[in-house]
Every structure is written in structure tokens, then in C-alpha cells.
């Protein structure tokens, strides 16, 4: 039993990271109606921005963290301006393919600049704290609390600010938003900013939890999409729940399967979900 609980703890940590990616995928799908395949690599970019701040400039992580989020947001907004915006009226397939291209470019760029090797933010061993018979590392506490804080902030943004409400309005009905006089391009810009900031946070947490390497984001992309689909794509709360479920189930699967099959478990959940209930737990957009 304690062993299972210990694994659940790992699952929650991984789930938080997946959720941060899945929220972004869900927001972007809700508004632009395409599957953003470069989202995992956006997480990588965020993680490496933080590595740059910590390892090269030598700033402490709490300062680097928000700066890396902003830098990642600028990258995403730039990509949208140059690449996705001219394709706004193109079919979702073309958008999807171009995002796969973006993913390859981002990953290669990271690899050219930093090399293909594993990197870490901080050398040394972290001593876990014992809590109710469970071993919990301080990093894991940071990740869970950090993700929780970001989710609460995003909830407040979506429900209390004019831009947040406009984002939900666009996700509901783009045409009506335009008719109401909402400047849709401005809302789309802020959607990228928010999605990329969460992606960066997720990427940094992933780097803290394990290690950094140029394919870390590409590897987590499948669980991220599985989480977004499980929760109901386009649904913010669904993405959070979906992320936690995928994270926990992936970790629990290591009781029976080799850890190498973790992505296969996420994929299996996604396929079953698409067959049984394609709109997800929370009934997202079609």
C-alpha cells in the first residue's frame, strides 16, 4: 500500500506538469481550432531559457522562472505572428502540419545551441522529507504548489478580467465575438502568451523533476494531448483533471509494465477515450 501511495505521489507531480501543457493545448484549440503540435517543444524552449538564466547568467531560480515564462511567451507570440497568422483561414490540417514544422525547428534550435546531452539545473542530491511514511522531495512540493498557484491565477484571469472573459467568448463563438466588436487578433495574442507561459512553467518543472534534453518536450507531447482529449479539448478544467489522471495512471502502470511503456499507456487512454467519449469528461469543443 505505501508503495502504491508513493507512486501516486510521483503521478501527481507528473500530472501537474502534463496539466500545465494540456491547458495551453486546450486554450489554443478552443480558440484557433487546431492541434498545436509544437507545444511540447515550447515547453523545452521554456526549460532551456531557465537553464540559460541559472547556469549562464547565474541568477537564482525564483527570479529566472518568471523571466523564462515571459521569454517563452514572446517566442510563441512571434511564431504566431510570422507563421500561424498568415494561415488563419487555412484548414486545420495545414495549421497542424505547420506546427509540426515549428516543433522540429524549435527542437533543432535548442539542440544546436545546447547540444543533445542531458542537462540539470542544480548539481547535488536532494534529501527527501518523510511524510506519513512517504518520501517527498522538496522539488516535488515546489512543482505541485507552483502548478496549483498558476492554475488559480489562470482561473482568476479567465473569470475576473475583461481579456480573460473575451478569451472564453472567442472560444465559445468567434463570429459573435467579432460582431460584438472584440478585436480577435488581440485576444489570440494573449492566448499565445498565456499558453506559452504555462508551457514554460511545465517545461521548467519537468527539468527540475528529471533532466533537460532537447527531446524532453516532444516526449511529453503525447501525454499532454492525451490529457487535453481526456478532459475534453477546449475545456480548461478538463485539461487539469485529464493531466492528473494521465500522470497518475502512467506512474501506476510501472507496477505492471516496464517504465518504457508509459507513453503507450497515455496513448491507450487517449484512443479508448476517443472511441468511447470523444468529447472528453468535461465535454469540450467538437
Amino acid at each position, binding site marked *: 500500500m505505501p508503495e502504491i501511495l508513493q507512486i501516486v505521489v510521483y503521478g501527481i507531480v507528473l500530472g501537474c506538469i502534463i496539466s500545465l501543457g494540456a491547458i495551453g493545448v486546450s486554450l489554443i484549440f478552443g480558440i484557433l481550432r487546431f492541434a498545436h503540435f509544437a507545444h511540447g517543444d515550447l515547453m523545452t524552449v521554456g526549460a532551456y531559457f531557465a537553464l540559460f538564466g541559472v547556469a549562464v547568467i547565474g541568477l537564482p531560480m525564483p527570479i529566472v522562472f518568471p523571466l523564462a515564462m515571459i521569454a517563452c511567451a514572446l517566442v510563441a507570440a512571434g511564431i504566431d505572428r510570422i507563421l500561424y497568422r498568415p494561415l488563419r483561414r487555412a484548414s486545420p490540417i495545414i495549421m497542424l502540419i505547420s506546427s509540426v514544422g515549428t516543433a522540429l525547428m524549435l527542437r533543432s534550435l535548442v539542440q544546436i545551441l545546447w547540444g543533445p546531452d542531458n542537462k540539470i539545473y542544480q548539481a547535488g542530491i536532494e534529501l527527501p522529507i518523510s511524510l506519513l511514511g512517504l518520501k517527498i522531495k522538496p522539488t516535488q512540493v515546489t512543482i505541485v504548489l507552483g502548478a496549483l498557484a498558476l492554475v488559480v491565477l489562470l482561473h482568476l484571469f479567465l473569470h475576473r478580467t475583461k481579456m480573460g*472573459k473575451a478569451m472564453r*467568448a472567442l472560444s465559445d*463563438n468567434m463570429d*459573435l465575438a*467579432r*460582431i*460584438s*466588436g*472584440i*478585436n480577435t487578433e488581440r485576444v489570440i495574442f494573449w492566448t499565445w502568451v498565456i499558453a506559452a507561459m504555462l508551457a514554460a512553467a511545465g517545461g521548467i518543472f519537468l527539468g527540475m523533476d528529471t533532466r533537460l534534453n532537447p527531446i524532453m518536450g516532444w516526449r511529453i507531447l503525447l501525454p499532454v494531448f492525451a490529457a487535453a482529449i481526456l478532459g475534453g479539448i477546449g475545456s480548461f478544467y478538463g485539461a487539469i483533471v485529464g493531466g492528473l489522471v494521465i500522470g497518475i495512471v502512467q506512474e501506476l502502470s510501472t507496477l505492471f509494465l516496464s517504465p518504457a511503456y508509459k507513453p503507450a499507456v497515455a496513448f491507450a487512454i487517449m484512443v479508448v477515450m476517443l472511441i468511447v467519449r470523444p468529447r472528453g469528461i468535461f465535454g469540450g469543443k467538437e
Partner: protein
Amino acid sequence: MSLLLVENITGGYGGTDILHGVSLQVEPGEIVSIIGPNGAGKSTAMKAVFGLIAIRKGMVKFKNQVITGLRPDLVVRRGICYVPQEHNVFPSLTVQENLEMGAFVRNDDISGEIGQVFELFPPLKDKRKVPAGNLSGGQRQMVAMGRALMLKPELLLLDEPSAGLSPLFIDLIFERVQEINNLGVGILMVEQNAKQALTFSHRGYILVMGCNRYEDTAENLLANQEVAEMFLGG
């Protein structure tokens, strides 16, 4: 000076023209109805005013300024608001948030306008925190009209406000249309309930196959034997 002047517009979606030289006019404070058979281009004519379809020929003027082909978010700022027939609320947003979105272009205090909408549609006040998608058809129509009133438009475009409503709600919505008009708002309306719509309109246009067929005061149209037989169901 006319509030709205549509001169001889030709246009449609993509390659095919639906309108073949339609002309419309709304004077300040008027209720004008556009009626006609299905596929006559009634809704399309309205969308053309709002910059939602491509106009190839002709001109749209609002208060003597040319607005032909202007983007919808810019048309809104000039003082024209539009209520589409379908999908006219944000279903996951609350009633209050729907109204706030109607005033998106404004940055000042909008509590006065929200209060006015609740005065006009009292049932909405209790439902202000309910997602619009959970409301009945009639209440949704109220939210849609309320949303369009948030910018205090001088001209309101209503695309079949009574579509899909029960007779009770139809009467209520038409009553509200007149009340909005009494506030000085010009109204251009497309209606299937042609006869009922004409009873409270000032003037009417009958479109057939994307062209003007009749235009007259509402009284004359109602009295016209030929119009009554062909377009008002006898």
C-alpha cells in the same frame, strides 16, 4: 439625412452573388422590416450592411458616411449593432458576462447600461450569473438583444428575432423591439412573421431573388391585395 442608406448593392458569399442590386433605407427612429420568401437574400442584405459578406457593387452609407465593406468590429464602433438569428449568445459565459462582451470596445463604467438591459428584460436580472447556454430560447433572445444594446447603438439590426420562439415569447420580443425603438434606436429587421412584424413597423421592403420587389409604408403593404396574397399568407 437617412440613418442608413443602402444603394444598389450586389454581392454574396465567395463567388456567387445573392444580392442583385438591393436598396434599403432607414430613417432615424424608424422600424423597417425586410420580408420575402426563403432564399430572397433578406439575411444576406443585413449581413452586407454589417461587413460580413463581400459587396461587389453599390454602397452602404451610415449617417452620410460610407461604410461599404468596413470590418464588423469597426462597424460596431460607428453605432450599428447586429443580432444574428442563430448562435447569438456566448453559451458558456454568464448572462452578465455576455452583456459585458457587448461593451468590449468601451473602457468606462457600463453598470448603467447593464441596469437598463435588466429594466428592459426583467427575467434576465435573476439569471445574471447563469450561463447563457442554460437559458430558454426566449431568454437567450433577450440576452442577444441586450448584448447588442450595450453600446447604445443608433441602429439595431435584428435577424429573425422571433425565430423558434413560442407565440407568447414572440409577442414579448416584438413588444421589446418597439420599446427599444421608443428609446430612439432605428431598427432594421428581417422577419418570417411578416404580417405581425408589419403591424408595428413604419415601413417595409419585400425582397425576391435578391432584388427589391415592393417598398412602401407598412400600412400600404398590409392593405395591398397582391402583397397580402403572395407574401403575407393571404
